[in-house]
């Protein structure tokens, strides 16, 4: 079984977000980058399937050379090889097109990724990849088991859970609790040194959107602590300051 796991290279969730160049560019100074947390779940499940179903796992990232430490971490966690498509991942369609162009001749039985990235949170790429490859796509997948050529899936839906059976190959956007995040061990980090990381150029440069500017949400007001014995102060604040009663 061949599994393709698409990973994003995103700012750590605790990063302080700011912009430069007239609010058109994300300021990466001092920011630590990580594997997208949802992609990390997809990768963890792929590595588990590698053990139980003797699968091979390829990770793919659309990004510049700066994403290679993130890709190496994915190799340290247990992926066998990696592909980096050398382009800025600025647009969901562009990214999906790059993935689809690599995947179409790759013979992958499963194409996994996070339900969404945590930088732009588009949540569109898995659907687009499915469309471009004419494959089914499902998201958000919380459980994934493989039996022969069929996958058993459970998926979160509005107000409930849906259980599905689906034939391979297909595309899945994943989220917890599909697997537990894996911490690379020292042996994995050593073996990642020699695993292949192939860099390829993007197949085309068509983008469907163009970025105009970023804007930070308004800052939240500081929390006010009110002594539990002082209910009248609380009522006064709710009435006159918050104006909710």
């Amino acid at each position, binding site marked *: 079984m061949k599994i393709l796991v698409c990973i994003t290279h995103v700012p750590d969730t605790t990063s302080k977000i700011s912009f430069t160049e007239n609010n058109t560019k994300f300021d990466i100074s001092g920011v630590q980058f990580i594997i997208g947390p949802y992609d990390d779940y997809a990768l963890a499940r792929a590595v588990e399937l590698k053990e139980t179903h003797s699968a091979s796992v390829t990770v793919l990232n659309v990004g510049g050379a700066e994403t290679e430490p993130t890709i190496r971490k994915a190799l340290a966690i247990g992926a066998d090889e990696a592909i980096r498509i050398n382009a800025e991942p600025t647009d969901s369609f562009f990214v999906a097109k790059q993935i689809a162009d690599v995947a179409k001749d790759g013979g992958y039985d499963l194409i996994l990724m996070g339900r969404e990235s945590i930088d732009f949170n588009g949540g569109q790429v898995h659907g687009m990849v499915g469309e471009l490859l004419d494959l089914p796509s499902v998201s958000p997948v919380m459980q994934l088991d493989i039996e022969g050529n069929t996958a058993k899936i459970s998926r979160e839906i509005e107000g409930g859970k849906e259980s599905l059976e689906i034939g391979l190959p297909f595309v899945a956007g994943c989220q917890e609790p599909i697997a537990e995040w894996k*911490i*690379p*061990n*020292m*042996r994995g980090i050593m073996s990642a040194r020699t695993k292949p990381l192939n860099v390829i150029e993007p197949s085309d440069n068509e983008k469907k959107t163009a970025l105009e500017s970023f804007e930070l949400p308004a800052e939240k007001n500081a929390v006010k*602590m009110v002594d539990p014995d002082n209910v009248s102060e609380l009522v006064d604040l709710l009435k006159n300051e918050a104006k909710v009663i």
Partner: protein
Amino acid sequence: MSGNTAMADQSINRKSFTDAFSSPDFYEIDDLLTEEHKLIRNSIRDFVKKEITPNIEQWCQDAHFPEEIVKKFGDIGAFGPTIPQEYGGGGLDYISYGLIMQEIERGDSGMRSTASVQGSLVMYPIYKFGSEEQKKKYLPKLASGEFLGCFGLTEPDHGSNPGGMVTNFRDAGDHFLLNGAKMWISNSPKADIAVVWAKNEAGRIHGLIVERGMEGFTTPETHNKWSLRASCTGELVFDNVKVPKENLLPGKNGLGAPLMCLDSARYGIAWGATGAAMDCYDSARRYALERVQFGKPIASFQLMQKKLSEMLTEITKAQLLNWKLGKMMDEGKATTAQISLAKRNNVDMALKISREARQMHGGMGITGEFPIMRHMMNLESVITYEGTHDIHLLILGHDITGIAAFS
């Protein structure tokens, strides 16, 4: 300590504290690390956050050695990271080893002791001085955590003077007969094997591998420690233990052999103590910013700022010392005296920082809600074991003057 004092102030929540550690790196020392070093450091940091930090306060309060951590250390690769991969080790460099020790000790010095002993004092001598059969027999099991090991050098009457040891073995035909006792041995009560240093009939020190289950070999536990409470400590008692001749380490003998092991362990301690200091500093910094007295955060007071400034200065110096020493270790040219300087300086600095941080936390600093008192009590052992604070001074003095103040 009644009522409405600092002791009763629980408004600063421990959970948010332990989750929000930020690593001080004032001189951008990360620039000196490779991407692989950073991945190693961050992976061990994640491991500690998942496996150690949530439980360590309770383990220490209960004086409980979590045996399950041995296998987990093996899985993550914390045992013998510099031992070649063919023997189950990590095949990593000394900077990596240092970073691993730093992160584990940021969690707890007792946990780091367990890993240090296994790697530097058990796997290292078997790898350096052992036969090929010994390496193949023991190293993979020690690396994976299937076996826990300990190191027997210190004796009840011979601590700083290990050369005076009385533990001895004699040739009894097809085996050696080992007699004597060792004390203050980390891991001993749970160890599967012990690397024991003993004198032969001629008074020459040799290393022997003693296995649990050998008749006459016992490992009584040392109770009532106020320090390293999550790590198990005990004695090794040898009463006419028959040790097979093939368990003698053939590669090196004399006091220099165990001292080489101590060099490797002391190097790891220099990094480890820095980790404990980083944790104390970070906790003190965040506490000082959140704790309000006289209507403003205590961090706004000059005496608090002085403490924090001095802490960061000392940590930064220690980080640079560690990095350069690590480079020299990798080049194989670090001397015992250079390692002594780093171990002595960094443990002393960490202990002082833990005491200052303890005060900055006020009453909360003595509780298990914060890691400070635990680090402080742990470091009292760390400043004593693997060469006391004073002995390292004399090693340096010897190096400077050429005159040994002790023999």
